């Protein structure tokens, strides 16, 4: 069983929702980012989404845009992102790592080589925001051959007519985008999300993670009651920006702030069903 399937099976057995933490690889720099990455499992992250920085992240709000650009400015590349995963795997062989980002850096790296290198680095899955089912075959097949899950996204605009297209060929888990908008902007409406999740669950047995509008512990708890996992990204990377002032970085402060927030959000998600 894959790390992702194992993790969701464990969560199900414990009757609790998972907490998925997102950070951009290399934000604010390689070393600090690696330290945060390594600290996340102990700070409650059941799965880690590692952002592959891109100059033009069109589905991201201001916080993740800034995070992506900070990482690029500090010299992050796809090679270094895969290197970070290899470093992480030296001490953690159980926490699933999902790379999230946009297609062009993968296209540029070479799709087949990327799938092989990512799998051998210890990556478990991919979420590629600008690769809808209609266009993802050229990555899905190499990813499957390498043993990587290509995680599909469903959104409030994915209606009953379209849902089968999204679910057909989906593996790992389904990522439900809880708001109509970019990351970290609007706040989720739990009733609407619950209705959508009911539709999705009727159509698939895959676990469903919910993300995009979760900012606070209260949001995380609400989502944890209805979804298999809650994803938080913008709120975590906003902590990094607080400690990355142009006039000097407080690296230790950033690491502590992100991990503390992660622990609080994870606690809220984990305990929501008690």
């Amino acid at each position, binding site marked *: 069983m894959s790390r992702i399937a194992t993790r969701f099976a464990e969560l199900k057995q414990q009757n609790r929702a998972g907490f998925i933490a997102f950070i951009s690889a290399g934000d604010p720099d390689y070393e600090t980012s690696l330290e945060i990455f390594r600290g996340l499992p102990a700070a409650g992250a059941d799965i880690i989404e590692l952002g592959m920085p*891109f*100059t*033009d*992240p*069109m*589905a991201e*709000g*201001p916080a993740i*845009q800034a995070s992506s*650009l900070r990482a*690029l400015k500090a010299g992050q*590349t*796809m090679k270094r992102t895969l290197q970070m995963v290899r470093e992480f795997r030296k001490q953690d062989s159980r926490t699933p790592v999902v790379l999230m980002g*946009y*297609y*062009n*850096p*993968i*296209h*540029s*790296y070479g799709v087949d080589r990327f799938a092989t290198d990512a799998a051998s680095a210890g990556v478990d899955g991919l979420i590629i*925001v*600008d*690769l*809808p089912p*209609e*266009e993802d075959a050229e990555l899905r097949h190499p990813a499957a051959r390498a043993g990587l899950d290509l995680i*599909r*996204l*469903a*959104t*409030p*605009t*994915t*209606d009953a007519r*379209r849902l089968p297209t*999204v679910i057909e060929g989906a593996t790992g888990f389904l990522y439900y*985008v809880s708001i*109509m*908008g*970019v990351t970290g*902007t*609007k706040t989720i409406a739990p009733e609407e999300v619950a209705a959508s999740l009911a539709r999705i669950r009727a159509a698939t047995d895959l676990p469903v993670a919910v993300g995009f509008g979760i900012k606070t512990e209260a949001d995380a708890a609400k989502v944890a009651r209805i979804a298999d996992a809650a994803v938080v990204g913008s709120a975590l990377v906003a902590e990094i920006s607080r400690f990355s002032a142009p006039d000097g970085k407080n690296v230790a402060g950033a690491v502590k702030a992100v991990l503390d927030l992660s622990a609080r959000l994870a606690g809220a998600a984990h305990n929501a069903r008690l």
Partner: protein
Amino acid sequence: MNTSQRPNSFRTGPDETGHFGIFGGRYVAETLMPLILDLEKAYNAAKADPSFQAELDDFLEHYVGRPSPLYFAERLTAYWGGPKIWFKRDELNHTGAHKINNCMGQILLARRMGKTRIIAETGAGQHGVATATVAARFGLPCVVYMGEDDIKRQMPNVFRMRLLGAEVVPVTSGSKTLKDAMNEALRDWVANVENTFYIIGTVAGPHPYPAMVRDFQSVIGREARAQMLKAEGRLPDAAVACIGGGSNAMGLFYPFLDDASVALYGVEAAGLGIATGKHAASLAGGRPGVLHGNRTYLLQDDDGQIIEAHSISAGLDYPGIGPEHAWLHDMKRVKYVSATDQEALDAFQLCARQEGILPALEPSHALAFTGKLAATMRKDQTILMNLCGRGDKDIFAIAEHLGTKL
């Protein structure tokens, strides 16, 4: 369709999934997919409805001022001493450029679809002005995203948009130019899918935009083809247009694609020179990638990060190019060349003095290449050039380059 095979016709693309060979497609977030599928359906229905085309034709004639004239540039012809130079005068359209041909088509479609809010991106401001114009004409609120750097370069157009009632939103993310304005417009669209219609200004973006914008702009080539036949009794030997995203070029070329005797030239912006890296020539200096919903040639670094384009012309300052151009490039049906900032400035001044026309900086690139091409052709031949915009908007930028204070 396959890129390695020359088709019987160059006018059959895109295929039903929106691809021109390997280019094009629909690389968008899932939130937008249902909208794009709806848009495709609505556009196909409109295309098949004679009343839609009749309404569009009526507005093009009485509001836009079509057909635009075909003009024999007699003094430039004599100056270069070669083939006869003909201008397609799309700068005489209402709002001063070809952009309104497409905006008129898209806003009629938006109305048909019951959309109540219009958004657009703009670089030079010509597409923003054209969008603000049609939005005002049909009483729809309009938000135009424009890079902060472009706002500084194109103040007159910013003011025009505001006079027309549009909200101009400065984009401060990324490189603060056209590509970032397009990112921001896409972000707006994702957040306002229910009521909003995104009027994309060039032959790029997710399917069906590249084909739809081409179709709306093809009025340029259809008219010019008939006008050339009437004026010269035959087709031109060459047709020339500038390329940023490539909408005026696609509109000019499309009706000529299967006329093998007509050589087609797309002129990219070489900025300070291709070798300097400071340019906007995606075909000459880029490689295939995926951005803004389509696969096409992009300016990018070795890691697949998008590189900022550079051109004196804000309208050409884009790191990509429409996917149909990418395909026509690989099929070798259109020859893609380039002109530098300096060559465009020189051509601008030449046109002003020789023909009494201030061209926009964008077609000044086409004109610079037309001069070079003329030197290689005979007197009994003809060149058709799309004069796709007028230069009034550029006088401040040009004054700065000429060291004049206005």
